[in-house]
């Protein structure tokens, strides 16, 4: 909105067009001025030419005049008739171009008329003298006629004529200039000024339209106005559309910002160097961005996740190269609060530029998964491992075993448990199983494992044994402990235990084979009279 500016505001900043620079004034003044200059040149030229021409014409007229009276002058000279000569001379004086006339018969002055030429001697024009021939013998010269031209008068006459024509031309030039100026003013400059002023004052923001100049609706200026109006309409429509679009965009931006701000998922933008450009509050909360704030540098993803920088870079470059989201779980180690935290980060490349990513706190889920996993491997009654748990652990333990640290599997089967169950009920039986499991656990080290395989059958995995003898000692302790009377509620129950021992002979022996061996040894102990232990392979 601000970039468009308001017409009123623009009006204030733009200097108004002065009279001197106005198109109307300039055009009119220039037209008239130019016409006057050209007119003056034409006037002066034509005055000069006309004056010369008129001068020549008047002088020529003198010759024609003499030709007209030549015969009569000849007669007068022939007859020596001063009266006739004076008539002729006097007649010539009627012409203004003639100052004086003298007619000679032979060398005698026959008649003279007019002023003396002495006062009016201009070098440019000599007096005219023509011989007079006899009327009866044309070859005989009987006198001559002399005419003094009225030089000043001829000049004045020519000048007056020239000035008259010049004045007419000047008047014509002024009239033409005025007419042209008026026409130009009416049909061109005034409509253009009107259009320019109208356009200048036009309130485009509100779609105002201009009126075409009066009388010029159908010429080019009218078309210009119509085009401008069309332009304004289109601009107005574009402005409206743009405003709507902007509002829509702002709304959508607010919406997205709200989502961004209130999301439970951490959202962040990562630049090419692994720095976080921006992030939402959830991101700050999940990875603890605040820990790295205040150093003047934006937080770095690798530091936030507690991983080596090259790992983070590899993750980013993978996402960029594969053009698909890369998802990875990270364990945050150095967070306060004790509990371990897991974060899932998804990185997505946006072309060559920055990457965006989302981060979710998956600690709860991780814990839940762990719980579920552990539940599946435990015996719900005693809290010991069940068969599955035992198998998983045994696999690991067997893998780590060697000659100095042997592994042995003890299979413990209670003797007389069914009778306890039948006599005192399942509840008492269950309690007994819990007490026995506790006893067995107390007899083994922390690095050993105890599992309930089902019913009254337990298995113990002993690790780090120096020899088979150590396993036998523990088996003996277990047999002894199980044989003790156990008070449960108001009753005291007593069972026994038969134990079979299988010591792992080589690391490649499967656990099932080991367990099977212990089972067989356990049956040997049962057959030998119960409450005893036997070692596989020793009968």
């Amino acid at each position, binding site marked *: 909105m601000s970039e468009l500016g308001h017409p009123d505001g623009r009006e204030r900043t733009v200097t108004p067009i002065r009279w001197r620079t106005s198109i109307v004034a300039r055009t009119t003044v220039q037209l008239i001025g130019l016409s006057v200059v050209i007119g003056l040149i034409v006037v002066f030229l034509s005055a000069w030419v006309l004056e010369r021409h008129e001068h020549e014409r008047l002088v020529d007229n003198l010759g024609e005049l003499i030709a007209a009276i030549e015969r009569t002058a000849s*007669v007068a000279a*022939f*007859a*020596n008739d001063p009266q*006739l000569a004076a008539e002729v001379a006097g007649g010539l004086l009627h012409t203004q171009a003639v100052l004086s006339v003298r007619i000679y018969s032979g060398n005698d002055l026959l008649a003279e008329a007019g002023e003396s030429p002495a006062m009016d001697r201009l070098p440019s024009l000599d007096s005219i003298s023509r011989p007079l021939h006899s009327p*009866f013998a044309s070859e*005989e010269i009987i006198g001559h006629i002399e005419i003094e031209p009225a030089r000043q008068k001829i000049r004045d006459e020519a000048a007056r004529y020239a000035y008259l024509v010049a004045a007419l031309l000047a008047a014509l030039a002024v009239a033409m200039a005025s007419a042209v100026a008026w026409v130009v003013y009416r049909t061109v400059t005034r409509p253009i000024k009107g259009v320019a002023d109208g356009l200048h004052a036009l309130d485009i923001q509100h779609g105002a339209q201009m009126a075409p100049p009066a009388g010029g609706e159908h010429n080019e200026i009218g078309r210009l106005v119509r085009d401008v109006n069309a332009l304004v309409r289109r601009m107005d429509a574009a402005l409206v559309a743009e405003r709507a679009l902007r509002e829509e965009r702002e709304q959508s931006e607010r919406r997205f910002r709200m989502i961004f701000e209130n999301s439970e998922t951490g959202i962040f933008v990562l630049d090419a160097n692994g720095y976080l450009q921006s992030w939402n509050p959830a991101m700050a909360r999940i990875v603890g961005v605040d820990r790295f704030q205040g150093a003047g540098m934006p937080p770095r993803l690798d530091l936030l996740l507690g991983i080596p920088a090259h790992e983070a870079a590899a993750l980013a470059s993978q996402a960029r190269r594969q053009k698909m989201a890369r998802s990875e779980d990270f364990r945050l180690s150095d967070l306060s609060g004790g509990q371990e935290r897991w974060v899932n980060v998804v990185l997505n490349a946006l072309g060559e530029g920055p990457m965006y990513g989302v981060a979710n706190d998956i600690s709860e889920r991780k814990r839940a998964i762990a719980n579920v996993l552990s539940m599946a491997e435990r015996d719900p009654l005693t809290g010991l491992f069940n068969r599955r748990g035992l198998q998983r652990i045994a696999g690991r333990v067997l893998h780590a075993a060697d000659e100095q640290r042997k592994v042995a599997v003890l299979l413990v089967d209670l003797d007389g448990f069914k009778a306890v169950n039948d006599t005192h009920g399942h509840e008492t039986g269950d309690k007994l199983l819990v007490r026995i499991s506790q006893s067995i656990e107390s007899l083994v080290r922390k690095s050993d494992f105890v599992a309930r395989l089902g019913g009254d059958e337990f298995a113990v995995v002993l690790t780090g044994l120096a020899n088979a003898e150590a396993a036998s000692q523990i088996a003996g302790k277990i047999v002894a402990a199980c044989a003790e009377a156990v008070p449960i509620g108001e009753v005291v129950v007593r069972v026994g235990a038969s134990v079979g021992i299988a010591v792992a002979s080589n690391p490649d022996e499967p656990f099932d084979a080991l367990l099977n061996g212990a089972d067989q040894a356990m049956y040997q102990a049962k057959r030998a009279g119960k409450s005893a232990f036997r070692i596989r392979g020793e009968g």
Partner: protein
Amino acid sequence: MNAFRPSLLFLALAMAAVLTPAPGSARAEEIVVIVAADSAVSQLSRSQVTNLFLGRYKQLPGDGRAHPSDLAELKDNFYRRLVNKTPGEISAYWARLVYSGQTVPPDQIDSIETMIDQIRRTEGAIGYIPRSRLVEGIKPVYQLED
């Protein structure tokens, strides 16, 4: 019509009687310019004759005032031979001078006898007659050939 026919016939007869011999004799015959026999003038040039009869010279050379006279029957022939002008041209010439009043044309004399008589009696008189009519008391000073 009836009245006109006799007069026309008469005019034709009169012209035939008067003009038929005249052109033959006048054209063939020389005209002589004459003065009185006792005049100081003995010979004139064509130019002098022209100037005298057309008013330029008002004096006879070596004598007094000139009095030129035209002979009616020879006038046209005389001026045609002298300056090669028609009678109309001569009349027009004189008309301009008559208007000023300064110069007057020669007197016109109707008969050769009157002309001769005028030349004999008037001092400074000058005229012209057919050469064949030269008589005592006058002398030719210029001869105009045809």
